[in-house]
């Protein structure tokens, strides 16, 4: 195991943790008899872009859902933007700090694009405003501005179900842009995309994180994309941390070993 991992385990936490936008200590989750995440420490500074890698079932998604507040961890403490998240339900408070985009996008297909984008504002809007907006969209100008940045301004009034996969992805990103959370989480954002599209989507997401001065944490598999768009790589296997290295140190042999079914030792220097 790497010394890098050890350093993130111990040394950092006794210092003032407010330097970290994400600061989780001893997070764990067990589903029935399956250990999804063994006690894990994870600390991420503003400006960092972290890639989670590992075979399926390695606990990547579970970690992202824990960070998003969608799954309560069995043990451990989680500070997001220096605020403890103990007992916080996903919703208003959490949505200012953290936003999640999943591979499935999770848009409401029957709503027009503008409403799906405006859903990013629901955490800031009152009830009345959000109900009125369903019939006559509020803040339409900012939606239009966001969509033009993404090149799909002309789709603003179309039913979301009629858009192509790539267009829907932009709608989901536009929603995230309106939500503007400090911590952007992405669960397999580029799987099943061709390389050019994957590159573009990651550029959009990291650009968004940079604009806000926040962090991005994403799970993905392609080493070249990781080296280009991320600063740090965390490798996981069966819920256990394998390595935590700067992305330029990610060698193909490392990934091969991580994904190897026979669980060979990982050649980390």
């Amino acid at each position, binding site marked *: 195991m790497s010394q890098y991992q050890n350093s993130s385990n111990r040394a950092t936490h006794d210092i003032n943790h407010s330097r970290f936008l994400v600061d989780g200590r001893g997070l764990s989750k067990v589903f029935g008899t399956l250990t999804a995440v063994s006690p894990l420490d994870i600390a991420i500074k503003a400006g960092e872009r972290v890639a989670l890698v590992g075979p399926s079932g390695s606990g990547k998604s579970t970690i992202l859902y824990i960070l998003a507040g969608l799954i309560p961890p069995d043990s451990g403490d989680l500070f997001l933007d220096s605020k403890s998240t103990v007992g916080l339900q996903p919703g208003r408070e959490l949505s200012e700090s953290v936003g999640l985009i999943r591979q499935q996008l999770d848009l409401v297909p029957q709503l027009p694009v503008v409403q799906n984008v405006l859903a990013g504002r629901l955490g800031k809007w009152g009830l009345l405003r959000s109900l009125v907006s369903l019939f006559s969209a509020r803040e339409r100008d900012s939606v239009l501005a966001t969509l033009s940045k993404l090149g799909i301004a002309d789709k603003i*009034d179309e039913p979301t179900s009629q858009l192509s996969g790539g267009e829907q992805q932009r709608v989901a990103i536009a929603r995230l842009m309106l939500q503007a959370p400090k911590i952007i989480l992405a669960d397999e954002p580029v799987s099943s995309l061709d390389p050019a599209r994957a590159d573009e989507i990651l550029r959009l997401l990291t650009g968004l994180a940079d604009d806000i001065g926040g962090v991005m944490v994403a799970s993905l598999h392609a080493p070249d994309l990781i080296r280009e768009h991320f600063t740090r790589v965390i490798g996981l296997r069966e819920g256990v941390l394998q390595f935590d290295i700067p992305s330029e140190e990610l060698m193909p042999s490392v990934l091969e070993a991580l994904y190897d079914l026979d669980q060979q030792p990982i050649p980390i220097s």
Partner: protein
Amino acid sequence: MTWTNSPFRSLDARRLLSLVLIGAFVWSLSSVDWRGGIVHTGGGDALKDFPLALFPPELSPGFLKLGLIASWQTVVHAVAGITLAIIIGLPLGIIASGSLGKPGRVRMLVAAVMRFILAFMRSIHELIWAVLFVAAFGLSSLAAVLAIAIPYAGILGRIYSELLNDVSEGPLDGLRSAGASPAGVLIYGRMPMVLTDLLSYGFYRFECAIRAAAIMSFVGIRGLGFEIQLSLHDLKFAEVWTLLLFLFGLVLLVDYWSTSVRRSLNS
């Protein structure tokens, strides 16, 4: 862009439709005669007494026995009706599916005519059939059974013809290349392939037939509906509740049976 493909239209259309439906509902309220008051003389008391009569319903052994007998009579008519409906509906459905006889214009024409006949049979509500049959033949159980069987045969026939048409052609081609006639293809190919679906749908309709049999009371057939009518006329609301609960239980039972059968057939 065509009407169905245009996204702008389809969203606007949905909103428009909601408005039209709400408008139609409000419009329909205007055709209610509100002047005379909606509750009639003495209705207010009944409105109060009726829900209270549920606590408790009539539970004397004699009345429970009557409820059981009435349930049995309802079941009998429903079962006879649905079996006759299957017996009539299956051949009509086979003809309507156009899978018998030589391919060609005649077969298509016969199938189209049969589909029209089936549509007519199911267009007329079972109780109207009952009223007509009773007027024609006089009051009898057979008239009620026939009245249930005809519209249900219309429904079953249509579904059966669709099921028979939807089977995959692969196995049928196998039979055809082995020299089977259309009748042979039907008996050895189509029928076995859809048999479980035919039964499954028949069972599904059985639950509806229970309700149909219960309202045959209206033309004078004995059963749960008949007893409910009598108890209502005597203003014995507690008895009405008991009978309604019998009907509820009966429908639940048949529903449970038919769901279990269909589930294990389709699993």
